[in-house]
Each structure stands twice: as structure tokens, then as C-alpha cells.
């Protein structure tokens, strides 16, 4: 599948911003299952500084600084992405039990180096017994890992309500677990917290999903903005992605921008401004399949 992605972020300020320094994670990365064929980044006003680099997790990051006074900052990120087919749930039937995976991660760290980074508490996700307890019904003894994670994905989808007024980027996980509502980012953090609290490796994936559904199918939740889901480490299959917001194993409608331990590693845009007063944010995302 090939897609074009158009992602516009606009900050509107009350008064002039005289210095703006921003960190972007917007350019889709390349990996076995995805090729970014074309990418364009436009920033208005034109930035005085622009540095692109690859971060610790292998994602593209862009540092931009604008020194000229401005009341609007617009960042437009466009790309053409080619997705390779992923394994379906029926092809993932032979994973080891989750206890075995946990044991391997604990005892054979050298063989599983790339997973080790995603085992521990991180900025937005604190491992807690409460999270392990929530996950427990899905993780009964000797259950195959993929089976258990898929079950947890379905439970999060059913038991939590999507509500974009209930939380913001700083809402702690406890509150999400308590209130049983949130947005894709909260659900991803919740699942990551559950899996890590059980001793499994799990990462946060930032990206987009198809905006307009195929004929006769409902529009996906979270399609008008950036999206987030999770990826769990399974020694024999590698990293397998699940989307608790849409109750699915990730197939060919998710475009990956990057991954990290949680939102804070790959937030699409964050930074500091000098001046500006009150700010308003407008984000729009359009993902279109290329037929």
C-alpha cells in the first residue's frame, strides 16, 4: 500500500513571538515494513536554523529556530510512504508464552539488546503493580505472548472510552486507569505500562492512520490528527504492533513516523517560545491512499 500524508500544525499567538525553538518528530522513518519515498517539510516563517539528525531510537528529528517576530507558526510535513504487508493474527500463532519471553529478556540481555531499552519506567510511563494487576486476566499462565497482548488490546478498547476532553498530554497514567477514558496516547501509555509492569518490552509508536475509510467501513478514530499505538517485543516475530484505540493488530492502514519509550521521546512537535502570550493550536492530518 502507498499513501500520501499531509500534516499541518499551526500555532497562533496573541502577541509576537520573538524566539521560537522547536523540536519535530514528523518525518516517517524507514524500516523493513515501511519505505518513505518522498518527504517535504515547510516552515513559515522561514526558520533561521534548521538541523536534521537521527535520534537515539533511530527516528528523524528536526530542530528549527525562528528569530524573526511572528504571530503564526506553520509547520507542514508531507510524505509519500510505501507499506509492506505485515503478518496477520493467524500467522502469529506460535509465539512463546509471555513468561518465557519475560525470562529471556531477564537472562539473555545481550541477545535482546534492542528490546532492553523498552523494559523500564520512562518519563510518562511508570511501572506499577496496579497496572500489572489490570493486565493479569489477559496474562494467565503459559498463554502465548501475542495472544495475551491481543486480548489486552481488546479489553482496553472495550473498557475505556475515547474522550478527547478527559485528558491532555500531561495526564498521569493513574488518572487514565481510574477514569477509564482518554485518547490514543493514553491508551498506548496504559498498555505500555501494563506490559512493562509484567516484565515485557513495549514501545510507543507515533504515526498516522488512514483518514477516509474504504467504502462501507467506518472512519477510524483519531484519523484527523497524529495517532499513536504500541509495539510489543516477541523474540521469534520481532516487534508486533497493536492499536488499542481501534482494537486491532496493525496491518496496512498505519503509517509509522517513529518510536520511543513513550510520547515524550517522539512528540510530533515541542519547544519553547519567547513572548507570544496565549497560544492556540490547530492540527490537521490527511492520509490518502495512492491507488
Amino acid at each position, binding site marked *: 500500500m502507498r499513501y500520501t500524508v499531509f500534516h499541518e*500544525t499551526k*500555532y497562533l499567538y496573541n*502577541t*509576537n513571538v*520573538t*524566539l521560537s*525553538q*522547536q*523540536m519535530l518528530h514528523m518525518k516517517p522513518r524507514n524500516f523493513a515494513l515501511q519505505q518513505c519515498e518522498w518527504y517535504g517539510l515547510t516552515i513559515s516563517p522561514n526558520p*533561521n*536554523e534548521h*538541523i536534521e539528525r537521527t*535520534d*537515539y*531510537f533511530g527516528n528523524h528529528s528536526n*530542530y528549527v*529556530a525562528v*528569530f524573526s*517576530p511572528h504571530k503564526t507558526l506553520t509547520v507542514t510535513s508531507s510524505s509519500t510512504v510505501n507499506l509492506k504487508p505485515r503478518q496477520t493474527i493467524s500467522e502469529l500463532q506460535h509465539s512463546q508464552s509471555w513468561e518465557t519471553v519475560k525470562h529471556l529478556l531477564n537472562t539473555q*540481555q*545481550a541477545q535482546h*539488546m534492542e528490546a*532492553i*531499552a523498552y*523494559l*523500564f*519506567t520512562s518519563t510518562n510511563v511508570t511501572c506499577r*503493580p496496579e497496572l500489572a494487576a489490570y493486565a493479569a486476566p489477559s496474562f494467565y499462565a503459559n498463554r502465548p505472548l501475542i495472544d495475551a497482548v491481543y486480548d489486552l488490546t481488546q479489553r482496553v478498547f472495550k473498557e475505556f472510552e475515547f474522550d*478527547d476532553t478527559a485528558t*491532555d*498530554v500531561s495526564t498521569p497514567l493513574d488518572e487514565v486507569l481510574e477514569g477509564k477514558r482518554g*485518547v*490514543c*496516547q493514553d491508551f498506548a501509555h496504559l498498555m505500555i505500562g501494563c506490559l512493562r509492569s509484567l516484565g515485557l518490552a513495549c514501545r510507543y509508536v*507515533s504515526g498516522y492512520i488512514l483518514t477516509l475509510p474504504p467504502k462501507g467501513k467506518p472512519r477510524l478514530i*483519531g484519523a*484527523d*490528527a*497524529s*495517532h*499513536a499505538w504500541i509495539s510489543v517485543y516477541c523474540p521469534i516475530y520481532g516487534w508486533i504492533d497493536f492499536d488499542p484505540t481501534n482494537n486491532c493488530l496493525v496491518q496496512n492502514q498505519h503509517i509509522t513516523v517513529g518510536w520511543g519509550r513513550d*510520547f*515524550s*521521546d517522539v*512528540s*510530533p*512537535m*515541542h*519547544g*519553547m*517560545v*519567547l*513572548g*507570544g502570550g496565549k*497560544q492556540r*493550536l490547530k*492540527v490537521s492530518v490527511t492520509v490518502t491512499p495512492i491507488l
Partner: protein
Amino acid sequence: MLQPTLNLAPDLHAHYNELCDANGQTRPHWQGLIETLQHEEPAHMRKRIDAVLRQVRDNGVTYNVYADTDGLQRPWGLDVLPFILPHDEWQNIASALAQRATLLNAILNDIYGEQLTIKSGTLPAALVHGHAGFLRPCHGIKHINQIALHHYAVDIARAPSGQWWVLSDRTQAPTGAGYALENRTIIASAFPELFRDLKIQRLSRFFSIMRDNLAHWGRQCAAKQTESDASIMPLSSGEQPLIVILTPGPYNETYHEQSYLAGYLGFPLVQGSDLTVRNGVAWLKTISGLKPVHVILRRLDDDFCDPLELNSHSLLGVAGLTEVTRQGHVLVTNALGSNILQSGALLGFLPALCRQLLGEELSMPSVATWWCGETKALQTVITNIRELVIKPAFPHIFQHPIFGEDLNEAEIAALILKLKTHPQDYIAQESVKISQAPVLNQTSTNREHIDQRRHEETTQHILENKPEDALKSFELSSLAVGLRVYACATTNGYSVMPGGLARVASGQDERVISMQRGGTSKDTWITSPYLPNQLSLLRHTTSSRDLVRGNTYLSSRMVENLYWFGRYNVRNYHISRLLRTAIHFFMEFSAEHRAIEWPAVHKLCIWYGFMPLLDDDENIDTTDKDQNNHDDLSSEDIEDLLIKAVFSHTSNSLASNIEQFFQLAFNLRERLSSDNWRIINQMSQHFKQASLQPSLADCLLQLDDTNASLVTITGFTLDGMTRDQGWRFMSIGRRIERLQFLCALIQHALMMPAESHLEWLLQLNDSIVTYRARYSAQPEWLPMLDLMLMDENNPNSMMFQLKDLLKYLVEISATYNGGGNEGRIIVCLESLKALDPDIAFNNGSQLLASWLQETYQASVEISEQLSLRFFSYSGMHNNSTSYAANNNGVY
């Protein structure tokens, strides 16, 4: 005579005795000190002790304790007796610690580089990936000479066997080297003969090595800056690179040390907001523009250094700093990310890491430590838990040490459960019996005596007057001592400071050595077989070519603080005098017969916000309209308002203005003399110690007191402070504040009836003495206004303020190519001179009132323009210093 050995019978079962050997004989390196003490005249010893106490106080050596509710600062605890180690023993310690620093630096390079130690299993991944101090954006940053650990401190202690152990490593932003230096200055002067005879090694060379190496690397950064941006001028030969100390600010517990080191090393002390990042370079915002910074010696935790790439919640850092270090355009010491080594869990893995990375055995063992994250270790810990101390494995976990021996069965069970639930978060250490050294302490009677006194001066007084009592009240005792040792990186390995900060356990729990918990400190003396290097740091390095006669790097923040320091000094002076006048008027007249001058006093009180606005006031605030008519406030109301104006903590009171002034002074610590600082500190303390229900009499006492202090502070300011550009801004602040007061005072006075008494006006303006010397009769309008407005010899006159202000503004404009806006003042001056006294200098004069209004407005605008131009310099036109973070979420 002191009999030190009597109280110090060695306890062979537990502690190593630093002073005596197993036979009770004084060890050779202590003999000189002990002989001195034994032959000491009591009065002489008294003098030594007094000198130490006085110097700690006079130097203002303090340690801030965040949780301390009594006030921000605690005097530094310093024992008179040094801690002594012989040269040969020290050689072994120093080389072991240099090896350890080399090892830790190698580990840092590996963690932020290839991670071979993790891949090979020598270093458990959890100690890196599970450590909140692992800053991933810093991975891959190249360091000059592969040095990431530039400053290293290590806590060591001696085991009962005599062997030295490492208790913990400090790799983030090690504190205490400055305190060690200050301890040395104080103690060496208390025992000058002994210090010379024992040939104690000097500390200054260590600091000069550190400075020279930082400067060397700074030059390399300067060259890189020029290489990438031709508009940045290369350093000329002899020009020093700009090295700054980045402080978290005055509330940090070791702020005093930071300002002391800044002064000693000659590095500007800056806060995050003083720096800005542009085009891959970190710049210092000074009043003469942006200056490229070459080295940042940080005292800020590494993740707080950059809100953009590291901790986005930090308000203390410099956005974009990580990228500047990545480009090699600034040296940050220690390297960002070095906090990762501050983990007790690491201790157990160091021997293997040392073999892997250095191919050597680790010279100095660490205290036996088990990281519970290893299954086997956890078992060992649980089996032996009663003999162990449980501590958090990582600095981000807050938990005081738990001693297994203190716990009952239920508590042990709960602790074990906790360890099993989060094994990776805990370490267990052997409960250490560390060595004891002699401490000269005050006996309990004397201590109680002192505790009863509020002020150190009183103590001082008692001590000086009763030497015979004092003699009895001091004796030696033994207390547990740990040593913090410092090392700095050089281009040629690590250099270890010959000495260190000896820290003495507080009496209550000798298992814990902590300045936070009320421990005290000692100077550490290393004897030397050689003649010490007699050169002090400054003499050693300064030639006539390097002489600096102005503060080259005056930061905008410093200048802004100085300006407001000047304004608040004068403002508080006027407020305290006004309140005194108001209270006198109030007490001398009954409610039925208020003086005809009272409305003017009342309105001045309103102007300063001490009393509510009047309904008939033309400036009435519309929100106040529904309130009662305040024209006839009851006597009780007025009394209440006056007391509140002095003591309450609402925004306009004298107490809160004094607090503002104190905060400004606190931020200017490194520019104030210790005497000056002490007066300011005392003045502010007096407000905090005020009674809960003060009377008007209390108010008068407080006002007299405050007034006297403010006059003294003004004296210090005029006499003692360097006349640099910063001083000019402070003087401008003083003049503008007085000018505004005069405008308000005279404007309100002009509305009084013609027959009013005028003495109080002259009193308030501090011109009554001059007036009486010139005119013998009752004050009259014309001569009074002439004295207060036109007389340029009267330092409280309008003319004096305007002329002085003009002089400073012209100087500012000349130095900074404009910005003084002196034109406004010239206009005010000329129009004042043009006023005809016979016509204008009378009560009710509209001419004068409108001149006052214009002049007041001019001063407000000048203040705003100075602030725009100099106080928030960012290289662009902006008037906002508020940083806002944005972080857009995803859905």
C-alpha cells in the same frame, strides 16, 4: 589545659581511631596539633575559636536547607580542629581515586557510545536503561580528549581495619570543593604556626590546574565557533575564554558555595535565563550585547540544562544547549548525562568494569554493596537484612536509608516485600563502622547558653567577656568522620585536590553523615615532605596584561537586580519615614481634631497603598465604588491599617517591600560585602521575628530600626561598591525612586491649606536640619519649596536628583551608544529652572503641580525604556521574558 587523650579511649571493636593507635599513643601526624593544644593558653585557644566562629559568620558561609522553615539559610558548621592525614598515606588514596575517576570517565564514554560493557554483560542493562539519568539525546556526543567527567567527588571513609573504602561517587555536579577551600582559609588562619610547621599542602594549585585546563578546552571551543561562523571573532592571544558557572539560583542549597567559587575563580555566575542559544552557539546576555560562551561549569542537574531536548519541565535551563554541545561549540562540565553514574548499584560492578575497561584491578574497594536487581544478590540481602542498610539504587527514587537493625519483625517483612516487588530499585550496603576523629565541641551547658541567644553577636559578646567560663566549656570528643575528596580532569589524567571536605556525623545518628541533617565539617590537612607552593591562585596567574578594570561580563539580570536594589533601598527608606510620620500624626491628635495636615499624610498613605482609596478621589478604582465612604475612617480602622502597613505580608506593606529588597540582595550576594549583607539579613529577620499582635509602639520601634539599617546600607553602597556600569544602574534606580517620591510628596503637600505646618514635610524629606540652619523662623512655603526643589546642594532635592540622574544617563548613553534617554530629563531640568519661585512656589500652585506630573511621567518612561533596552536583552526587540512551552498532543 586540654587533655585530649582522656576522652578518647580507643574502642578496638568498632571504630578505627584516627588520633590514637591501638596502644593509646597519639599517631605521629597528629602530634603537632595535640602538642599545640596541650600547651595552649586558655585565652589563646579562646581567640582561635572565636576567630573561626566570626569568620564563618562574616564570610556569610551558609548552607541552604530547602525544608528549613526558620529561614532560608543555616550557618555552615565548621570544627576548629583539622582532620590530618600523612603524606604517604595520602599518595595511595590520591592515586586510587585518580584511577577511579579514570574508570568512571571510561564507563561514561562507553554508555554514551558503543555500550560494550552492556553488550558483554559486565554492566547490567537495567542500570543504564532503568536509570532516569540516562539521557538518550546525549548519546553519541563527542567529548574533547574523551573527557566527560571533568569534576569528580567521592565520599570515602576508613574501615575498622584501617583500610579506606568508597561510600559513594558524585559525578553529576559535585558540590563542596568551594566549602573545602573556605574551610581552609578559615582554619589555616586560626593555626598559622602549625599550618606552616606541619608543611600542609596548599589547595590553590588544584584550582589553578582546574582553571587552566578549562581555559585550554575553552580555547578549542572558541576555535570551533569561529570555524563554523566567521562572524565570531577568534580569541586574541592573551584573551581568556569565557567560562561561566551555571547556577540553579539562590534557593539552591549550595548557592553560597557557587558564588564563592565564582568569585575565587573569576568566572561569572549565571542563571539559565542569562544564556541563550543562537546558531549553534551559547551566548551570555550582557548589557553590551551577546557574548559567546566557551565553557559552562554547571551546578544544575544535567536534565534541567535543556528544556528543549532533555527535561521539558525545566525552567532553569537553556533551550538548545544539548545541540551546542553536540556541535562542540561549548564545553559543559560535567558532560550532560553524567548523572547516570550516580547509582549505588554500580559499586558492585566496578571491579569487573575496571578490568574490562582499564585492564587493571580497582585500587580502592567500595563498601560491600548488593544490587537487588540480581536474583542471587536479592537472596543474600534478604538473608542478612538485619546487618544491612537499604538504599535506593537510583537518585530519582527518594528514600532515606533504612537500617535493618532498627526494624521490628513486621517492618522487616514489609521491607522484604518491597524489595521483592521492585528489586531493581534498591541496593543493600554493609552498615559501616567508620573511623572517628577528635572534634572540639562545646559542652552542653555552654550550648544551651548559646541557644538562648538569638543573635550571634550576643554570643560573641558573652564569649569575649568571660574567658574563664569559656575555657571550661570546651572539650574534645570523638565523632565519626567521612572524607569527600575532589578530582578534576586535565589533559594528562586526573588531578586530586590534596585535602578535602571532612564531614562529621551529627551527634544523634553517627551512621549518617549529612550536611542536610545537621552534620558539621572540618578542614583536611595533608602533611607534606616538601615546601609547599606559596603562590596563591591570583598571584600565580595574573600578570599586568591580564588586569581587568571593569566587569566585562555584566549580565542583564545582574544589572536589573542592581537597578531594583537601588530603588527598593530608597523606597523602603521613604516608606518607613512616611509611616513614622503618619503614626505620630495619628497619636498626637484625637479623632475629632485631626490636624489640617492629616489629609495630605493620609493621601500619601493611599498613594503607597497603605490605606483604601477615597470616594472623592479622582483616580478612584471603579471596583471599589460599592464600598463605604472611607473619608471618615474610624480611629480603630486607621490604627489597624497603620500596623498592617508595617507588619502584614500584603503586597504593599513595609514588611513585604523589605522582603523584596532582601530577595534582590540575595541575588546580588557576590557583589555585596559580608558586612553589608549581614545588615540586610538582620533587617529582614527582624520582621520575621515580630510579635503576632504588634502595637503602634512596636511599629515605631521597628520603623526606627529599619530606618537606621537602611541608612547603613546606603552608606555601604556609596562607600563600598565598585563604581562600574552596574553601580550606575543602581544609582539611577535610587535617583528615580527618590524623584518619584518627591513628586508625590510635593503634589500632595500643595493641596494643604496655606496655614499648614510644614515641618513634617521637611522631616519626611530629611531636609529639616538644613532648613533650620538657614532659616530660624517657622518653615514657610517659599523657602521650603526652594530647598526641596531647587537647591542642588541638598542631596534630597529635586534638582539634585535630576542632575545626578542626567549624569548617569549620559554615561550610559555614551557607553552603550544610546539608551539613556537623557533628553527627557534635560527638558524637566530646564523647565524647573524656568519656574519663577515667586509665582510657582506656593501652596495650590497649578504650575508646579503640572511640572511635577510631567516629571513623574518622564521618570516612569525612562524606567520602562531602561528595562526594555538593558534588562531583557535578547539581541532583538522584545519586551517579554516569559518562556512558554508548547507540546502538542496526539489523538
